[in-house]
């Protein structure tokens, strides 16, 4: 079994990869640490486990999909 880590948008580009597979991780924070190539987690980072928003201290179990992304900017677009 394993844990899938996904990075989106700016974070994916900064970390240099979108998908990482970990053999294990206890929390969202520890998944970040193992997968982020040493980059500190930006304060405004949003975290999800299995596509639900969670706190970075949330527990992770085998088989989970953990995702990290910047604040969302959907909807209309006006400059």
């Amino acid at each position, binding site marked *: 079994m394993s844990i899938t880590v996904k990075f989106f948008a700016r974070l994916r580009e900064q970390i240099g990869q979108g998908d990482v597979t970990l053999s294990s991780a206890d929390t969202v924070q520890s998944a970040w640490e193992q997968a982020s190539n040493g980059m500190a987690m930006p304060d405004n980072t949003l975290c*999800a486990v299995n*596509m639900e928003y969670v706190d970075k201290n949330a527990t992770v179990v085998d088989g989970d999909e953990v995702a990290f992304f910047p604040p*969302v900017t*959907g*909807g209309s677009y006006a*400059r």
Partner: protein
Amino acid sequence: MPADIRTAPFDPWQETQQYQQAHLEAGKYGATASFVGTMRDFNQGDDVTSMTLEHYPGMTESYLGKICDEAMQRWELIDCLIIHRVGEIHPNDPIVLTVVWSAHRKEAFEACRYLMEELKSRAPFWKKEGLENGHRWVDKNTPG
């Protein structure tokens, strides 16, 4: 009560009409409130040449559905529709459509606005502006 992601341009008025014809029972709804967010011109004094919307496939659909569910629970509604574009978007392209059908107008107006506010604050979409040489991520949503 679908929440659709589209990778190609869509016509919000035709979508609304078609959805209504296919899914709403004639004579049951008295109020339909809708909102369309459209891509505005890039050309406002800087060098943006394109716009791309990235999303988190799976989570996006799940959150748009959740937002519809919540609106249906919070107000007495008949149906909701959300359509959202992703990928490369051009000026004048519709980006998002939200529609609410209900018996009375108060519920339709309130729920339609709720869908948009929740979508903007919770659905995992990210905007990237293409520049002459490279690109940049849009960090903040516009207010209002």
